[in-house]
């Protein structure tokens, strides 16, 4: 006997009124809008056809063909809270400045060493920070192709202890969110900041 003993038909039901979901009601797999590969499950439609997008001149998308060959993800650190704590000396003491985490193998291939400045470019903007070479991000093999991934913590940009000092020295500060695409999940409105394509060059 199944668990649905209260239903006369003895199986589960799903209640999904028309209009409650922009897509679905059953989940499926789509690649991000900027993806290094094709979708094996849906070869004709690699990403979600009903994603919401901003339609401004800044909202451009890159592909591996255009040279955007590295997968980038953005995240937060335990030591900082969004964009507030970069003004607090205590948190700045723990993590003093922005960085880009780069897999060891990729760094070796491109001659990047820990502490070198790297420029990360997407179709939408660019971001420069020091490289943190790490073993924690491993190269991936996607559809038989070796693909690198980098990671950038989001906590810097605008004004802060480090930013103000850099500006005095004439540096151009950008926020990492200029890299990520404004592609939004049609139901939950979650932006697609965890997977997009970039170019990485040593400055």
């Amino acid at each position, binding site marked *: 006997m199944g668990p649905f003993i209260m239903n006369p038909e003895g199986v589960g039901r799903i209640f999904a009124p028309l209009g409650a979901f922009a897509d679905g009601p059953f989940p499926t797999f789509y690649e991000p809008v900027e993806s290094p590969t094709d979708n094996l499950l849906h070869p004709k439609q690699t990403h979600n056809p009903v994603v919401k997008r901003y339609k401004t001149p800044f909202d451009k998308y890159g592909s591996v063909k255009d040279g955007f060959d590295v997968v980038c993800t953005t995240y937060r650190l335990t*030591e900082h809270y969004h964009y507030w704590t970069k003004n607090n000396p205590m948190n700045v*003491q*723990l*993590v*003093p400045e922005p960085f880009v985490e780069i897999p060891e193998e990729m760094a070796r291939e491109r001659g990047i060493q820990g*502490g070198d400045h790297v420029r990360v470019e997407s179709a939408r903007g660019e971001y420069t920070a*020091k490289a943190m070479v790490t*073993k924690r991000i*491993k190269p991936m093999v996607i559809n038989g192709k070796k693909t690198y991934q980098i990671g950038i913590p989001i906590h810097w940009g605008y004004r802060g202890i480090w930013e103000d000092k850099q500006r005095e020295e004439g540096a151009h500060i950008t926020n990492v969110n200029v890299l990520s695409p404004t592609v939004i999940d049609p139901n939950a409105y979650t932006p697609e900041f965890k997977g997009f394509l970039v170019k990485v060059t040593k400055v």
Partner: protein
Amino acid sequence: MSQATLRVQKISGHAGTVPGEDTQRQYTVAKLVDTTTCIGCKACEVACVEWNDMPFSPTTFDNTYQTMPETRWNYWNLITFDEHEKEDGSLMWLMRKNQCMHCAEPGCLAACPSDGAIVQYTNGIVDFQQDKCIGCGYCISGCPFNIPKFNKETKRVYKCTLCTDRVSEGLEPACIKACPTGCLHFGSKEDMLVLANERAKQLKDHYSFPNAGVYDPQGVGGTGVIYVLHDATQPELYGGLPSNPTIPLMVKLWKGPLKWLGNIAMVGGILGLFVHYLRFGPKDRDETPSEGARP
């Protein structure tokens, strides 16, 4: 940071017995750091700096999540971050809260020549008394864990106090209170060892850590900070934690046999002088003037 409710059991550079020694028994306290559940959030670092009211010191990017390469005179608690690749290719990100280990037989206390600058309380806490510190830095060479740090401005040495001010009031240290994952525990050494061994057994039996174990090095008589490690056979992986820490040989020699040799030589010298006087009497001045010495 002398505390009235804490009794002293060992005093540095002190001749004779310790006043009030053994008049009172206390539980030996210990911190338990379970490195397997540490997430490296550094809350304990912040709690330490804030509770002890220490000034901020600037740091620089160093290709790691670790706040600074080693502890400073005003930064007593530092999580070390190490990326370790196992033989099977899997990766472990090892985080260890590094601070004063509060050894049962402290090398710093043995090396210190200043009377009362370093004390050990009956509950096991090793504490520096900066008002009696002479700034010689011998404690730095006596410590097998590289913990005491010299402040060039005040010419004093500082380190973790195990929050004596909090512990003497029945509170846990600030770092323990701040830990969000429960990887830090505080209590009697006995209880902490039971807890640590239980956790190590759990790691061995239910997780794939056959070498899991407890770090409580006997080379320094056991420590007031004990670790549960994924791999207790290789403590060096955790930010260079020594596998068998001991008090440096020079400090041991200097404070043991050499000290007595020196004392014997000094007392012998004075005794010899005295015997010489008795045997030969005072030295006579040669009264005959030398030729041509005076016009």
